C-alpha cells in the first residue's frame, strides 16, 4: 500500500525537520534536583521522582495529522540531553552544531542555558566524570591508545527489548504486581528488605508517571479538538484522547491502543535515561496480531487503516535521532540512527511458524516508508514459508539494505547454550545491530568494542604501543626471538588476556556505579524479574544478565597472522625492494624485515606489500589455511571472555560486530602484516578484509561458517550485490537459497547492500542527487550522503559480487 496523504505529510515533516539540541529535559531535571536536594530521599526514589517530574512538565506534542502521538523532545528531532550521564561542554555543543555530517543545531538560548545553569550545576556530578575518576591509569592508557572503547561513559546500559507484557497489562496492573511483591517482603529475615521496599515503591512512582503522561496527551488532544480545522480531524483528536486516557493505565483493547501504548513506553524508557539502541518493540507482528484480528472482525479497522497506523508509528521512530554525543565521540559519531530493531517473523513461543498477515504488512511498510529508522529485521526460520522469504528478498533488492536477516533457529540455540529457557529463547530475538537477547527478561549490555589487530600490533612490539609511545601490555618477548608461529600466538594470547582483564575490571567498576547512582526504575518495571525480586535492572534484577565485549577486526587478524605464519615462519623470505629475487633467510631476519617494512608503512616496499596481499591465503576465500587461523583468533577471543562473571550475577559473552568502529580502530594502528596500510580501516564484523574475498559469496559464507557462531551473541556479515545480480525472479530465489544455505551452515546474520560502485561514486561526487540513497553501513542502514568520506570510500571498496 502507498503512503496515505497524511503519512506522506508526516514523513516529509520528519525528513525536513532539522535535528537540534533541546535543553528542556536537562533544565527540568536540574530544576527537580535543585528543589529536592535537601530532602532525604533514597537514590531509587529520587530517580523515580525525577522521572515523574520530567513527564509531568515536558512539552506535550501532537503534530498535525498524527494518529500516534508523543515526542521525546518538544518537537520532532529536537533531541534531549542527559547531563546526569554526560554534560555537554560548550565545545561539544559547537562541534555538534558545526560538524559537516550529522549536525545538531544549537540555538543561542541553549548555549546560554548550558553556560549559565546546566554546566555549573552538573560539573563534577555526571556519571561520565565518575567513571573516568574510577578508572586506573592502565585502563586510561589502553583506552586512549584505542585498544577498546567504553560504551557506558555517555549512554546508559541498554540494547533492551520489550516482550508481550504491555499488551495484556496496563500500568495499574504493574502496580498491582508491585504491591504483591511489597506484601511478600520478609522484613524479619531478609536484610535487603529496605532496599527492595524503596526500589519497588520507586517503580510504582514511574508507573503513575507514565499514566499521567498519557493523560496529559489526552488533555492536549481534547484541547486541540476544540479548535480542529475539520470535523474529521476533530473526531481523530477525540479518538486520540480516548486512546491516551485508556492506555497506558489499562491494557490495550485494539491495534491503535496497542501501538500508542508501546510508543508511550518507548518514550518513557528513553526519557528516563539514554540507553544504547533506545528501546525496541521486539516481535511486533506477533504482539499485534490478536488486536488486528479483533479489529477486522468487529469492523473497526481495515487492513489499509491498520497499515496507516503502522506507517504513523514508523514516522515516530524517525523523529528521534540518537542522543547527541560528547567529547571525541561527538566528532566521530556518524549517524542519527538509534538502532531500534523490530523483529519480523521467526517462531512463536510454541515453536511453530510465526508468519502472519502483519509480517507481510510490515515488509510492505519498510518498502513504502523507505526510512533509515527504525531498523527492521527478519528472523528467518526453517519453518517460515518460501513465499515470505522471497518477499524479504524482494525488499532487500530495493537497495536499502533492509531488512537484516537473522537465523531464527541459531538465535534460539545461542540462548539455550547459555541456559535460557526454551520459551524465553523463542520469545527473544535480536536487537541493536545483531545482538541476541531474551526479550523482556534480560539485561544484555554491550560494554565496548575491542580492537584485536591493535593487540597484535602491541604483541609485535613486545607490549609497547608505537603510536602512543607507551609500554601498554606485558613484555611477551621480542618477536624476532620467536622460533615458530605457536610462540607468536602464545604471546598474542597473553596480551589479549591482559587487555580483556583490564576491560572487565573497568566494566565492573562502571556497572557498580550505575547500580549505585542511576537505577532505571521504569526499565526495571518492564523487565522480568525486577518487580518480583525488588531489584533494579542495573543490579541484577533481570532474569538473565549478560555483558558483551564486541570483537572487531577478525578478518584483519586472520590475514595478518596467516601472512606471518606463511612468510615468516613457514618459508622465511626477504623480498628485495625492486627486482623479484627473494632470498630464503632465517625466521628472525624475515620477522625483522617485515617489522621494519610495517614501521615504514611499506615505503619503498611495494613488492613486499603485493606479496602479502596477493600471494598469501586470505580469509573469505574458503581457504582452510587462512580460515583455520580465523578460527584460532575467534577461539582465543572466546576463551578470554566467555563465562566470566559480571557484577549482576550473569556472565560475559562475545559477539563480533563493529558498527562503524572499525574505522576508528584502523586509524590507531600502523601498517599490518596483511598488507594493510597504516591508518586504514580494519575489517568489519566477521566479514573478510575489504577486497580480499575473490571467490564470490559462497566462498565467503563457507569461510565465515567455519566459526562456531552458536557460541556468540551475534556476528555481523555484510555482503554487497549489484542490482543486476538480483534482477530476475529466479535470481531472487537464488538469493533466498544463498541465505538458507548459510543459515544451515550455522550463520547468525547476513545483510546486503544492493548497489553498484558506480552509483556510489556518483553519489559521492553529487550528493544532492542521491540524498535518499540508503546503504548498509554495519548493523544498520544510513543515508550514504550523511556518511563521512572515509566511510563512503570503504563502502565503495567492499567487494562487489558480480553474478555474471
Amino acid at each position: 500500500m502507498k503512503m496515505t496523504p497524511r503519512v506522506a505529510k508526516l514523513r516529509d515533516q520528519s525528513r525536513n525537520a532539522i535535528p537540534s539540541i533541546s535543553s528542556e529535559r536537562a533544565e527540568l531535571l536540574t530544576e527537580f534536583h535543585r528543589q529536592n536536594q535537601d530532602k532525604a530521599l533514597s537514590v531509587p526514589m529520587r530517580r523515580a521522582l525525577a522521572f515523574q517530574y520530567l513527564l509531568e512538565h515536558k512539552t506535550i506534542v501532537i503534530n498535525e495529522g498524527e494518529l500516534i502521538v508523543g515526542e521525546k523532545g518538544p518537537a520532532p528531532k529536537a533531541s534531549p540531553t542527559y547531563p546526569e550521564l554526560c554534560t555537554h561542554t560548550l565545545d561539544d555543543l559547537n562541534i555538534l552544531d558545526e560538524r559537516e555530517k550529522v549536525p545538531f543545531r544549537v540555538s543561542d538560548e541553549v548555549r546560554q542555558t548550558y553556560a549559565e545553569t546546566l554546566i555549573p550545576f552538573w560539573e563534577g556530578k555526571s556519571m561520565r566524570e565518575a567513571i573516568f575518576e574510577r578508572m586506573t591509569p592502565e585502563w586510561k592508557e589502553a583506552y586512549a591508545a584505542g585498544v577498546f572503547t567504553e560504551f557506558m561513559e555517555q549512554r546508559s546500559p541498554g540494547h533492551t527489548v520489550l516482550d508481550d507484557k504491555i499488551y495484556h497489562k496496563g500500568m495499574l496492573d504493574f502496580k498491582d504486581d508491585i504491591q504483591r511483591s511489597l506484601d511478600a517482603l520478609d522484613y524479619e529475615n531478609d536484610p535487603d528488605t529496605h532496599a527492595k521496599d524503596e526500589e519497588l515503591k520507586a517503580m510504582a512512582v514511574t508507573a503513575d508517571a507514565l499514566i499521567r503522561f498519557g493523560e496529559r496527551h489526552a488533555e492536549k488532544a481534547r484541547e486541540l479538538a476544540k479548535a480542529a480545522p475539520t470535523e474529521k480531524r476533530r473526531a481523530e483528536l477525540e479518538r486520540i484522547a480516548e486512546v491516551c486516557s485508556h492506555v497506558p493505565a489499562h491494557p490495550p483493547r485494539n491495534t491503535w491502543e496497542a501501538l500508542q501504548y508501546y510508543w508511550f513506553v518507548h518514550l518513557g524508557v528513553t526519557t528516563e535515561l539514554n540507553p544504547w539502541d533506545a528501546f525496541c518493540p521486539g516481535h511486533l507482528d506477533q504482539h499485534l496480531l490478536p488486536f488486528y484480528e479483533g479489529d477486522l472482525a468487529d469492523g473497526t479497522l481495515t487492513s489499509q487503516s491498520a497499515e496507516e497506523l503502522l506507517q504513523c508509528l514508523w514516522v515516530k521512530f524517525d523523529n528521534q535521532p540518537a542522543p547527541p554525543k560528547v567529547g571525541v565521540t561527538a566528532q566521530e559519531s556518524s549517524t542519527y540512527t538509534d538502532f531500534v530493531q523490530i523483529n519480523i517473523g521467526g517462531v512463536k513461543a510454541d515453536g511453530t511458524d510465526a508468519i502472519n498477515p502483519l509480517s507481510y504488512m510490515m515488509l510492505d511498510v519498510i518498502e513504502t516508508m523507505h526510512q533509515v529508522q527504525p531498523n527492521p529485521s527478519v528472523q528467518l526460520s526453517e519453518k517460515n514459508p518460501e513465499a515470505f522469504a522471497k518477499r524479504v528478498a524482494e525488499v532487500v533488492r530495493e537497495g536499502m539494505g533492509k531488512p537484516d536477516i537473522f537465523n531464527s533457529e541459531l538465535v534460539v540455540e545461542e540462548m539455550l547454550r547459555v541456559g535460557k529457557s526454551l520459551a524465553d529463547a523463542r520469545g527473544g530475538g535480536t536487537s541493536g545491530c545483531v545482538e541476541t537477547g531474551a526479550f523482556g527478561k534480560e539485561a544484555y549490555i554491550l560494554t565496548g568494542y575491542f580492537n584485536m589487530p591493535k593487540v597484535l600490533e602491541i604483541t609485535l612490539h613486545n607490549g609497547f604501543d608505537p603510536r602512543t609511545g607507551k609500554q601498554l601490555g606485558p613484555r611477551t618477548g621480542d618477536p624476532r626471538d620467536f622460533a615458530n608461529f605457536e610462540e607468536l600466538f602464545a604471546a598474542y594470547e597473553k596480551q589479549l588476556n591482559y587487555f580483556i582483564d583490564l576491560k572487565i575490571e573497568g566494566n565492573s567498576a562502571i556497572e557498580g556505579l550505575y547500580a549505585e547512582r542511576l537505577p532505571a526504575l521504569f526499565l526495571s518495571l518492564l523487565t522480568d524479574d525486577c518487580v518480583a525480586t525488588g531489584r533494579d535492572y542495573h543490579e541484577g534484577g533481570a532474569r538473565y544478565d549478560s555483558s558483551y565485549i564486541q570483537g572487531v577486526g577478525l578478518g584483519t587478524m586472520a590475514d595478518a597472522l596467516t601472512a606471518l605464519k606463511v612468510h615468516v615462519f613457514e618459508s622465511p623470505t626477504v623480498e628485495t625492494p625492486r627486482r623479484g629475487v627473494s632470498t630464503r633467510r632465517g625466521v628472525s631476519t624475515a620477522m625483522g624485515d617485515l617489522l621494519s617494512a610495517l614501521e615504514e608503512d611499506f615505503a619503498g616496499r611495494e613488492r613486499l606489500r603485493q606479496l602479502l596481499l596477493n600471494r598469501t591465503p586470505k580469509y573469505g576465500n574458503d581457504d582452510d589455511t587462512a580460515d583455520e587461523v580465523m578460527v584460532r583468533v575467534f577461539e582465543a577471543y572466546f576463551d578470554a571472555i566467555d563465562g566470566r562473571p559480571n557484577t549482576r550475577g550473569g556472565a560475559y559473552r562475545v559477539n563480533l560486530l563493529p558498527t562503524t568502529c572499525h574505522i576508528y580502530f584502523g586509524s590507531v594502528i600502523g601498517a599490518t602484516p596483511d598488507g594493510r596500510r597504516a591508518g586504514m580501516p580494519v575489517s568489519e564484523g566477521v566479514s573478510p578484509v575489504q577486497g580480499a574475498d575473490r571467490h564470490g559469496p559462497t566462498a565467503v559464507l563457507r569461510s565465515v561458517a567455519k566459526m562456531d557462531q552458536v557460541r556468540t551473541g551475534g556476528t555481523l556479515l555484510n555482503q554487497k550485490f549489484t542490482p543486476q545480480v538480483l534482477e530476475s525472479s529466479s535470481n531472487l530465489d537464488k538469493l533466498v537459497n544463498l541465505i538458507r544455505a548459510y543459515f544451515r551452515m550455522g550463520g547468525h546474520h547476513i545483510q546486503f547492500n544492493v548497489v553498484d560502485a558506480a552509483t556510489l561514486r556518483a553519489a559521492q561526487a553529487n550528493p544532492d542527487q542521491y540524498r535518499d540513497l540508503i546503504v548498509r553501513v554495519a548493523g544498520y542502514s544510513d543515508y550514504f550522503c550523511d556518511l563521512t568520506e572515509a566511510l563512503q570510500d570503504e563502502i565503495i571498496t567492499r567487494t562487489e559480487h558480480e553474478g555474471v
Partner: protein
Amino acid sequence: MPQFPNFPTYQPPIFDIKRFSLHDGPGIRTTVFLKGCPLSCAWCHNPESQKSTPELIFRAERCLGCGACVDACPEEAITMAEGRSVTAWARCTHCGECAQVCYPGAREMACQEMTVEEVLEIVERDRPFYEESGGGVTFSGGEPLAHPDFLEAALVACREAGLHTALDTSGHAPWEVIDRIRPHVDLFLYDVKLLDDAQHQNDTGVSNRLLLANLQKLAELGHNIHVRTPLVPGINVTPAQIQALGKFVAQLPGVSRLDVLPYHEMAAEKYRRLGRDYPLHGLQSPDEETVQKTARTLREFGLEVHVGG
C-alpha cells in the same frame, strides 16, 4: 572419491572455476571452464578459452613498474616504458616465468592444470548451496568436448557424488564422443549460433552440420536440452536467421527452452590483455527493443524464451 584408473594423470587446461554461477543452468552452480575450442567465433567473450595451451594475460593497470618480469623473462620479450612493463607478444612463448614473479597480478597465466580429484574438491565445497537451490556443476569452455577423457571422468565423479551436471557445449565433436559423455549429463546447454552453414563457416571457422546433427540426435534420444543463442548484431540478428532458428529449435523433439544471450562488448578488454586485436571492435550490443522483439518472434514458435539465460 571414485578413482579413475584409465586417466590417472591426465590434467586438462582449466582457465577458471567460477563459484556462485547464476546463469549456467538451474540453481546456484559452480562452472568449470576448460580451455581449447575448435570454433573461433568472432564474438567470443572468453578469448582466453580458445587455445588449449597456457596463455599469458597482462593487466596493465595493475603493473607497478618494478621490473621483476624483465629480469625473469628468458626470451627478453619484456621492456619497461613509461613506468610499466611492455610485452613484445611476438616473442612471448607463454612460459609463465614473468607471472611467477608478478605479485600484483598484472601478469597471470590463464590456465591451471588440474586433476579430476582437484576439480571435484573445489566443486564439492558449495554442496550446501546446490542442495538448497537445486544447483550443481556446469562444464563449459572453450569446448569441454575437446577433452573427452577428462570430461567423462569428471562427469561420472560428479554424478557419483550426487551432483546435478550440466554441459555447456557447441556440440562440435564426433558423435562417438557425445555418445560417451551423454549418459552422465543432466542438462545440455547447447549453443546454436547460425543456421546458415556458409555464414557459420565464415564466422566460426567450422561447418554447422555436425553440431546440428548431434543436437538432433540428442533431442531424439530424449535428453534435457536448453538451446542457447548469442544475439550478435550484424551476424545473426536478422529476420531470416531468427526465423530459421525458431523453426529449427521448435521441431527438436522435447526441446522447448531457448535462451538468447545479447552480445556485449565487455570482452574487448580481454583481447587487449592477451595482446590480440578485437575482431568486432566498435560493435554495439543489441538494443533492448531488438532483444525483446527477437524474443517475441521466437516465442511465436511455441518456445519458452529467456533473455540472458
